């Protein structure tokens, strides 16, 4: 089994793989498959994952996170052959009036920044998931395969967990305007704090495909 995950999004990708393996009710999506330099590269149309009612969420001026985990699975199997992870941090700049998107995946673990002026542009950017590296193209030479994707909006990420741990370990002091105070109980609670499967998570799946349906340039 080849598991290639983005360095920055590896934990999420592995979590996603475990979740994906469980299956569930997946929403059908369109997928494009291409063999590029010997690797299977997928593109997904994830418009159903970003309905219009997310506009208010993404335009609230806070940092919103979209975690995308894509897995390649045999049609009749639940162990992914390859997993791809991508994390998008979206912040609406209320001064500049534009969306600033930071994309982290295997190709750019440090993140690459994109900007979009409008919700329509942002939605297009989020929905049009491209360059999803699903491992060697030879892996799908035989049999029938399925591409599944899990999209989580504002999941409990490692960063959020760390930030929350810091927050409860150093709660605000009782004095108004006072500096954070160190709390023994809070420090222990932060140490014992585990993540959750919280967040808005949706599962998508493309129709099964075979090697013949993989485009070659």
């Amino acid at each position, binding site marked *: 089994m080849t598991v290639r995950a983005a360095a920055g999004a590896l934990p999420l990708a592995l979590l996603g793989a475990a979740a994906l393996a469980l299956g569930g009710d997946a929403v059908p999506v369109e997928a494009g498959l291409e063999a590029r330099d010997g690797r299977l590269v997928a593109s997904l149309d994830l418009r159903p994952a970003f309905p219009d009612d997310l506009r208010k969420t993404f335009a609230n001026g806070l940092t919103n996170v979209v975690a995308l985990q894509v897995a390649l699975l045999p049609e009749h199997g639940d162990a992914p052959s390859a997993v791809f992870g991508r994390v998008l941090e979206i912040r*609406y700049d209320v001064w500049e009036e534009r969306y600033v998107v930071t994309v982290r995946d295997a190709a750019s673990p440090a993140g690459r920044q994109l900007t979009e002026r409008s919700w329509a542009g942002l939605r297009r950017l989020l929905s049009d998931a491209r360059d999803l590296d699903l491992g060697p193209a030879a892996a799908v030479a035989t049999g029938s395969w399925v591409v599944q994707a899990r999209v989580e909006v504002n999941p409990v990420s490692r960063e*959020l*967990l760390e930030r*929350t741990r810091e927050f409860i370990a150093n709660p605000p002091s009782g004095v108004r305007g006072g500096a954070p105070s160190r709390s023994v*109980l809070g420090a222990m609670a932060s*140490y*014992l704090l585990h993540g959750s499967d919280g*967040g808005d998570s949706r599962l998508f799946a493309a129709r099964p495909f075979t090697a013949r349906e993989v485009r070659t340039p």
Partner: protein
Amino acid sequence: MTAPGPAGGRGGEPAGAAAAPAPAGARPRRIRPSRFEVQIALALVLAAAVPLGAALWLASRLAAENLALGLNPRVVARLEATPALYGDLFQARKQLYAEQARALARALPRDAAAIPAFLEAAVRHTPRLRRIAVIDARGEVRAEAENPEPNPEGEWREAPARVPLGAGETLEAVFAVEARFFADLDDARELAEGMAGVEALRAEIQQSYVRAFALLLGAWAVAAGLAGWWLARRTTRRVSDLVRAVRELARGDLRVQVRVGPGGAADEVGQLARAFNTMVDEVRESRDRIVYLEKISGWQEVARRLAHEIKNPLTPILLAFQQLEAHHRERPAADPAFARLLADAGEIVREEIGTLQRLVDEFSGFAKLPEVRPEPADLGEFAEDFARTSPVEGAAVEVARAAGPCPVSLDRALMRRVLQNLVQNAVEAARPAPARVRLGVSRARDRAVLTVSDDGPGVPPELRERVFDPYFTTKAEGTGLGLAIAKKIVLQHGGDISAGAIPEGGSRFTLTFPQREAPPPPAS
């Protein structure tokens, strides 16, 4: 802790001169806890677990309520809406600046020469206008004015507003927006994101607080349990030691003792241990006394029979020999050698019969020791009276007595015989030098003590127990009955006698007697 018992000590007192270790007194190494310890430990665990459960439930409720208070949904929603409010503020500012720029464009003079002055005046009189310029179609600045105030610490950010003037020209007005808005916006966003994270992890945070509380309480309970176990063990160990000592006592070990530690000497367990030690001491002394007296009685019976068996043939032997001598005197022998032989034999027979007679007398005296009839007396006065009225040849007797009365019950005649035996032993040990004997009288708790010390060669340590056995003697001509008789008399007084030594090397015999209650002073 059981410990070797002092033979002469009482109630856990330090061992006396006759102390001997009790082999069963050593406490065996304990690995398994006693049932008593297990019961106490269980009680402690139960006592700790019940409030622990209640405290955990309370902690869970407290964490939930605190989180509910801290994460009021309205507060969180307001916080999350803060960046949008800033957005509205910025929009309003931008609209205001655009309107101001349009107003300036409308008022812009048509005379090109007047434009610079107008711009200068606009910068001076328009709030937050930092710079204004007229830019032609080629993008070149035709005229401009700028507020000379510096912005060294980034106290404002630029907000440009552009108004087309016609013929490709543009009026560009750059206004200032306070930089603190952006700092406040960042702070608000950070706080809102933190709160959103806490909100997303509310259930997990509550659980982690309960876990932390459980951990702290558990650690505290373990520490308290260990401390309680340590304290309980100190008590249960002493109780277990007592139980073990009682078992050893039941097996017949009368030298077992329970050690009374300095920390627990004052409590009930310490008092119980002290009482146990006293009881064991008294039982052991009583048993020793009974055993010795039974042994002495046996030896007295032997002495009586021996005296009888020896004494009976002595008179016929003597009479027979006297008849032989009388017969020889009636018929003077023709043989002078036989006459000499008979004379020598007669001398030997009479001498040996005399020796046997004295032995019989001593055996008889030992066998017929009279019953002790004690009467109230003062031990110090008795000792002084003995030194004054019972001189022993070859001995100088001194008396040293403690101040105050030392009331005892004594059979004066028999006790006088005891002292005579002891002084006589000192005289014989000191020969040919005269003996110097010191009688000491003192009190120790409820006992009266009489010591008889001399400056002779002393009694070797290994013989100090045996010297009181009947017929045991180290002297060539002794019968070994003197000290046996002395011990029997002392024991019959309820006392005890032991042999020891003084630092200078002489012997010291210590006689202890129960003190008699002093009579009340006569009423005046």
